[in-house]
């Protein structure tokens, strides 16, 4: 068994930035384990532009954005192993990995950074009734078939769910000559970014049916059509609103789930709210020395924030192996108040050594509401927002001095105060 200071599971955007963060914080004995045959993760298939606006003030494609981080990893000579699938992690931070080149390997890590990303919710998780024919793909699977393999998955397409990958694929399928008939979203608001609604649907006259869903799937062998219907406020289909749409392809963009199978093997506590690890402001999980960042921690809208978060995880892991941060730290809990969902971090040490970046998703659409973060009567942050929606993650920063000064007996409460 080989000892390594910091092992990073996953060489996608999170893993790459975590490695760079760790290196820049002084760590040198780092290893990235990547299961595919190239670094870059899901960005490899995201050939559209719009990446990096926040970080580089440029509009890059996914592969271009990834390349900037890959170049830096190479410049720093950070070791990485491709085609290396991690099968197991335990609480002692022993990692079991399998690869063509090395067979079965075990590493004993000083610290681990979990950067495994997320996966798409499949049809089965929705329970949509109907036939089990071919022609039903998650949007990401279709994106891989189109962008990496060069195949046409279908010609007449309905998109279920308005997550960002679905929206991007609406445009992409149009570009490759398919007819995208509509995008159907069960919620009364879109699950994706506003800019993607405009640039991927509106610009191509693809209708978005809000408060609608697919209630039946037709076609014994290949998909021949779907029945859609409007839903009421409890998301139950409204009788009489059924509409049959002839199509050969149904793309699903109905949510992403962090891939935490390995985290759970190591005993990392998972939040039912984010489906990712419970972390503090250093992104350390419930298992000392195991950190998490990127979409395995919580699903992000923008890769720029994945990179930023993962650099912090890398730095924290480097500090951890330098012994700077060992020993038990007590934490202030973060409470989700009105309108706040999926907040990260879920706890903050009483004396953080840096300003703390908070992220959450609004539970619904709010106009003219105010976001506040407070400890008892003391308000640490307040900002009025023109519009808040679940599809757009909210980011703000709390000053470390304010947090240190706040009453240690009380939690931090983040809430949305709705306009009267």
């Amino acid at each position: 068994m080989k000892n390594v200071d910091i092992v990073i599971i996953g060489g996608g955007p999170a893993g790459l930035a975590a490695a760079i963060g760790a290196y820049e914080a002084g760590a040198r004995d780092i290893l990235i384990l990547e299961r595919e045959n190239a670094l870059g993760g899901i960005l490899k298939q995201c050939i559209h532009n719009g990446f990096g606006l926040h970080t580089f003030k440029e509009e890059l494609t996914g592969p271009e954005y990834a390349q900037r981080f890959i170049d830096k990893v190479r410049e720093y000579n950070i070791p990485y192993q491709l085609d290396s699938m991690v099968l197991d992690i335990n609480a002692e931070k022993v990692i079991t990995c399998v690869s063509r080149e090395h067979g079965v390997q075990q590493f004993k890590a000083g610290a681990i950074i979990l950067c495994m990303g997320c996966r798409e919710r499949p049809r089965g998780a929705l329970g949509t009734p109907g036939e089990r024919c071919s022609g039903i793909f998650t949007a990401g699977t279709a994106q891989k078939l189109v962008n990496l393999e060069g195949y046409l998955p279908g010609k007449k397409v309905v998109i279920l769910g308005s997550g960002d990958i679905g929206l991007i694929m609406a445009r992409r399928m149009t570009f490759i000559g398919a007819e995208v008939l509509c995008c159907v979203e069960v919620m009364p608001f879109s699950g994706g970014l506003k800019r993607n609604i405009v640039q991927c649907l509106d610009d191509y006259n693809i209708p978005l049916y809000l408060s609608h869903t697919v209630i039946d799937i037709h076609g014994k062998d290949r998909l021949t059509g779907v029945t859609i219907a409007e839903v009421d406020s409890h998301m139950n289909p409204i009788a009489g609103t059924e509409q049959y749409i002839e199509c050969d392809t149904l793309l699903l963009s109905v949510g992403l789930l962090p891939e935490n199978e390995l985290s759970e093997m190591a005993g990392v506590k998972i939040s039912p709210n984010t489906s990712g690890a419970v972390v503090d402001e250093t992104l350390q999980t419930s298992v000392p020395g195991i950190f998490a960042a990127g979409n395995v921690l919580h699903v992000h809208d923008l890769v720029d924030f994945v990179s930023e978060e993962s650099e912090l995880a890398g730095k924290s892991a480097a500090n951890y192996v330098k012994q700077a941060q060992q020993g038990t730290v007590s934490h202030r809990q973060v409470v989700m108040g009105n309108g706040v969902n999926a907040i990260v971090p879920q706890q903050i040490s009483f004396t953080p050594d840096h300003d703390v970046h908070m992220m959450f998703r609004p539970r619904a659409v709010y106009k003219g509401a105010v976001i506040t973060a407070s400890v008892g009567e003391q308000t640490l942050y307040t900002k009025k927002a023109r519009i808040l929606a679940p599809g757009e993650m909210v980011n703000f920063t709390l000053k470390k001095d304010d947090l240190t000064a706040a009453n240690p007996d009380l939690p931090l409460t983040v809430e949305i105060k709705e306009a009267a």
Partner: protein
Amino acid sequence: METSYDVIVIGGGVVGCAVARELSAYDLKIALLEKATDICAGQSRANTAIIHGGYDAKPGTLKAYYNVKGNGMFDEICGELDVPHEWNTSLVVSFGPDEDPQIDELYERGLKNGVPGLEIIDHDEIMRREPNINPEAHRALLVNNGGIVCPYELTTAYAENASINGVTFFRSTPVTNIFKENGSWIVETPSARFSAKAVVNCAGIFSDEIHNMVSADKLEIQARKGEYYLVDKKYASTFHAAIFQVPSAMGKGILVARTVDGTVLLGPTAEDIDDKTEKRTTAEGLAKALAGARRTWPNLPGRAFITEFTGLRAHCTRNEFIIGEAADAPLFFDAAGVESPGLTSAPAIGKDLAKMVSEALHAAPNAKFNPIRKGIPKFRELSNERRAELIAQNPDFSKVICRCETVTEAEIREAIRRPVGAVNVDGIKIRTRAGMGRCQAGFCTPRTLEILSEELGVPLETLLKSEPGSRYVYGKIFD
């Protein structure tokens, strides 16, 4: 193409494959004809995967006889064919005193059927065994010889073993007519005209149509649909036993049953339908399955499901298995109307029918018969030492294709290369579990298609999910 055989078996489900394998122990020239693109395409693919104890069928029926006899053969057959099975017991549970008499009746019936090791247990014993069951559980029949088995692996294992013992498999070969000509059975299909001394009808839901081609004693098979939910394997340890509720006229009721792979089946519903090819799930059916399962498992989490599916039972209107030579059609043998407990009965039906056919044809034993089949190594279940050995022999074992179920490239390639190997994506799925996990083939589909295309030497755009027409992609974008 060789079309003259001693025996033609019609149907490549678990019964047909068991019959073919047992017949291959005799010195006979045997072909198996399957209508679908692959074996294990009907009831054998979509069922509850239970080794039934034998308490349910009416005493004196063939259902009772074959259930009890088949149950007793599983250790031997699964040993020979390397098929996963487990004796995890079954519990038939009453949820109130009003249902208790049915429990007692099943116990009595089980004794009459010769089921060993039946016990009646009370509330406290039920709760001790199954702490997650609905606490209203009142009384239960504990079936110590109840178990679970992988139905696809049992079917494919029978087929592989039959194949190495000389049986020729013809898939995508539907039988359109059967008649006698010059003392031989002629079996017509769109691709060829076969002749045989004997025919064995194992056509499942279509076994009436096949039987009625030769016999005036008409059978009628009613398709009885069952809808299921499949629950994520993280809930594998919720229940130890397969949990049944008290049965109804339509079947054994809604079960909560762990599979040998750790997922949990909820279902089936029971609804008679006209279309024998229907595989639709419905909002009503799924709601019924869920409501029924919640009676056993009240804390069933709402987001536990990974998929839903439908299976059709081949219910004979005579409410009995039809096994043996047709009275008015010598050397035409039936295994018709085989519904639940058909999976449990299959080993015994296979042995009995092979005996009947071989005796009728005065066949000698096959001196070269090899009863042993080894399964495809399951990388996910192996020790790290064994994994390292396999990778050293074949580096394809290092490449995990299906992440959810940890299925390697080596397993997928072997599933295609084996006798009666996979020819489409669902075939890979039932032979390896690739795509059966919680992401339901989102990650592995593109790579699985590439491997299948390489192995079969056909363009990727021609590959199917299962039946003709079920292709995945419409060619290259820039063609």
